[in-house]
């Protein structure tokens, strides 16, 4: 990511009044305009009917590949698997040098050093989950230590989880302070804040949590860990895109959005890109401002890309398994 975002060491100072107390923060978040569930879902469904063909599809495919955070977050991950993932992130289609690399690999903190070594100066970032991912249930010191360790090992980006328990019980200030503290612990690394929208349940909560994270200094707001169902959905992402759009309008500061989990096909990915284009606007059509947290999506993008250039579908066996 680049430095176009205003670099502040912690929370956005513009919001100092709002975030000075639990009650003022609550008033602010509850004063945000509501989201009508039926209307939001209808809008997302409408955008999903856009028909993206030929040149537009070619553009969308390459753009989507550059936006992938190629992810493996399994207990059974090994350094070998991470190295293989890094190789794929750098050259997703070894037979085609024109195929762009992905934005990042996304892994657990203990594998950051391995990934960093494998990626070198390729430009592909290392994103590490942290803060007791995926539940976020650990003491604050543990979460901060987790973050610092990931950054020290070379993580360019940190994907933290919010304390959903605190958020749902209305302790917004606690969540705010935690995000701000993690942001500080990130140092130069960029911070993605996972809202875990599947646990927040309502779109009103998603909008509030998104604003909370942005005010606390997030560079990105991210839907999900991928460990909770439902993970990313188009309407949830739409609500988050509205939030970053509104936030820029008020503050001039641009925040990225990352849907993660459940986006497996090119068709899905293109629906998201259309939504980015028409809700947040074309400025967000760049890996600095929009990412896909995904693993199997990349192979489908590659298959479609090959088909578009050769006119034929290749079988799954022609693309590497991660």
């Amino acid at each position, binding site marked *: 990511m680049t430095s*176009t975002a205003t670099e502040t060491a912690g929370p956005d100072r513009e919001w100092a009044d709002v975030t000075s107390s639990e009650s003022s923060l609550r008033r602010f978040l509850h004063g945000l305009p*509501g*989201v009508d569930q039926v*209307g*939001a879902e209808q809008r997302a469904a409408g955008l999903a009917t856009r*028909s*993206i063909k030929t040149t537009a599809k070619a553009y969308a495919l390459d753009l989507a590949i550059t936006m992938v955070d190629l992810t493996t977050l399994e207990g059974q991950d090994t350094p070998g698997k991470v190295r293989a993932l890094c190789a794929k992130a750098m050259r997703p289609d070894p037979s085609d040098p024109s195929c762009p690399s992905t934005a990042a690999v996304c892994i657990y903190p203990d594998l950051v050093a391995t990934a960093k070594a494998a990626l070198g100066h390729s430009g592909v970032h290392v994103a590490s989950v942290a803060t007791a991912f995926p539940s976020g249930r650990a003491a604050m010191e543990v979460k901060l230590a987790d973050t610092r360790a990931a950054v020290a090992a070379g993580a360019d980006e940190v994907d933290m989880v919010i304390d959903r328990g605190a958020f749902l019980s209305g302790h917004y200030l606690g969540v705010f302070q935690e995000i701000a503290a993690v942001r500080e612990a990130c140092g130069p690394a960029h911070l993605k804040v996972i809202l875990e929208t599947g646990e927040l349940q309502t779109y009103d909560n998603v909008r509030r949590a998104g604003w909370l994270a942005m005010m606390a200094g997030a560079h990105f707001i991210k839907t999900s860990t991928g460990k909770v169902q439902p993970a990313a959905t188009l309407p949830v992402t739409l609500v988050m895109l509205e939030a970053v759009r509104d936030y820029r309008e008020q503050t001039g500061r641009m925040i990225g959005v990352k849907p993660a989990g459940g986006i497996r096909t090119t068709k899905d990915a293109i629906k998201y890109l*259309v939504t980015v284009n028409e809700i947040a606007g074309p400025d967000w059509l760049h890996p600095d401002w929009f990412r896909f947290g995904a693993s199997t999506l990349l192979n489908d993008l590659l298959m479609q890309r090959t088909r578009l250039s050769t006119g034929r579908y290749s079988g799954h066996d022609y693309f590497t398994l991660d």
Partner: protein
Amino acid sequence: MDPTRSPGDRHVFEYAPAPESREIVDIRPSYGLFVGGEFVDGRGRSFKTISPSTEEVLAEVAEADATDVDIAVAAARRAHGRVWGRMPGRERAKYLFRIARIIQERGRELAVLESIDNGKPIKETRDVDVPIAAAHFFYYAGWADKLEYSGHGTESLGVAGQVIPWNFPLLMLAWKIAPALACGNTVVLKPAETTPLTALLFAEICQQADLPPGVVNIITGAGETGRALVSHPDVDKVAFTGSTEVGKAIARAVAGSDKRVTLELGGKAANIVFDDAPVDQAVEGIVNGIFFNQGHVCCAGSRLLVQESVAEEVLARLKRRVATLRMGDPLDKNTDIGAINSAEQLAKIRELSAIGEQEAAGRWSPPCELPEHGFWFPPTIFTGVSQAHRIAREEIFGPVLSVLTFRTPAEAIEKANNTPYGLSAGVWTEKGSRILKMANALRAGVVWANTFNKFDPASPFGGYQESGYGREGGRQGLEAYLR
């Protein structure tokens, strides 16, 4: 794309053309009238139907004169007396279910044909017009053998003379024909002269469904034909959807006769946005309310009443959203706004918009290139409109929104009701109690809460005052066709 570009660049995601293929429709060079189960020549002069997006002539269509109307009504009368009127409801239902299924099966064909002939975008014909038309037939098919539970009687009236408009040609046909047939009536239907083709394709569907000859008769023509039909002495029931002016003429023509009448006429609906509304969805609802189907909707939310405290914000968001609407080829799957249906309608929209400008209301349209051929009008918003302005009172029937403000719920109600019309209204608020209060206070046949332009066959639709009388849809829709 160039992955090396810097984030300051403008990124343009150009949607390549994605046209729906025209191959599926087979437009004949000329069409006759559908009378007694067959296509026959008309006695009047034929007329041309054109594609409003290109002005290309699509087909020659027969014009029915008074004799043709006579023959069609006689065919309907025979079919009613000999077959349809005495057929058990459960048997009639089978035909209606069959028609509904054929509409679905031939949905793509109907959608493409409707887009070509009417100018509306394929995404609307595909996702709205055709599926809801099929749903109406399914819904009323279900009623055919349950009329004794309708509360409106079980006996059919006889022959229904039905005249429908050009804004939703197939859908309005379904609204008219499905309940009439379910109740055991036979029909003579006249589609609008600018959009006859889907009705004629529907005639083929009736043949395909083996509907007994004469149960459905489709006669084409303009005002003269319609007049002959509604004033025909052997028509028992007149159903009309269209302008208030013509509706009044029909009411006069049938006055003093035994004919039953339902009229679904114009509107100037208020779409009321309160300061606690879900603002992004309200903006969608405003857009859907007035720009859906190029604003050619009798229940369009053509008057936006927005609470003064949020007016600026709502307008800014609205303009940003309207700027993303895609106007152009109706057959392109990404088109949001298609062509205005006719040169005549375009002239009317232009005239009223010019008046709006003279009345000193702020006029705004997003930058957009209009295609060279065909009839086009950009989405247009007038701000600073007052109740006294003509654009706040007269139905424009185009993509033109008048924006007014209010400060209190009482003022919103007063302004919303201050119109000779009363077809529909919209209320946007997160407060449930306010929705209920507004719905009671608004003089409109349909009040939508946190949505707009939602249609369902189970829901009755119709107006107050100059928006007409009678209800279509739902159990209430049966009343007009039973005794």
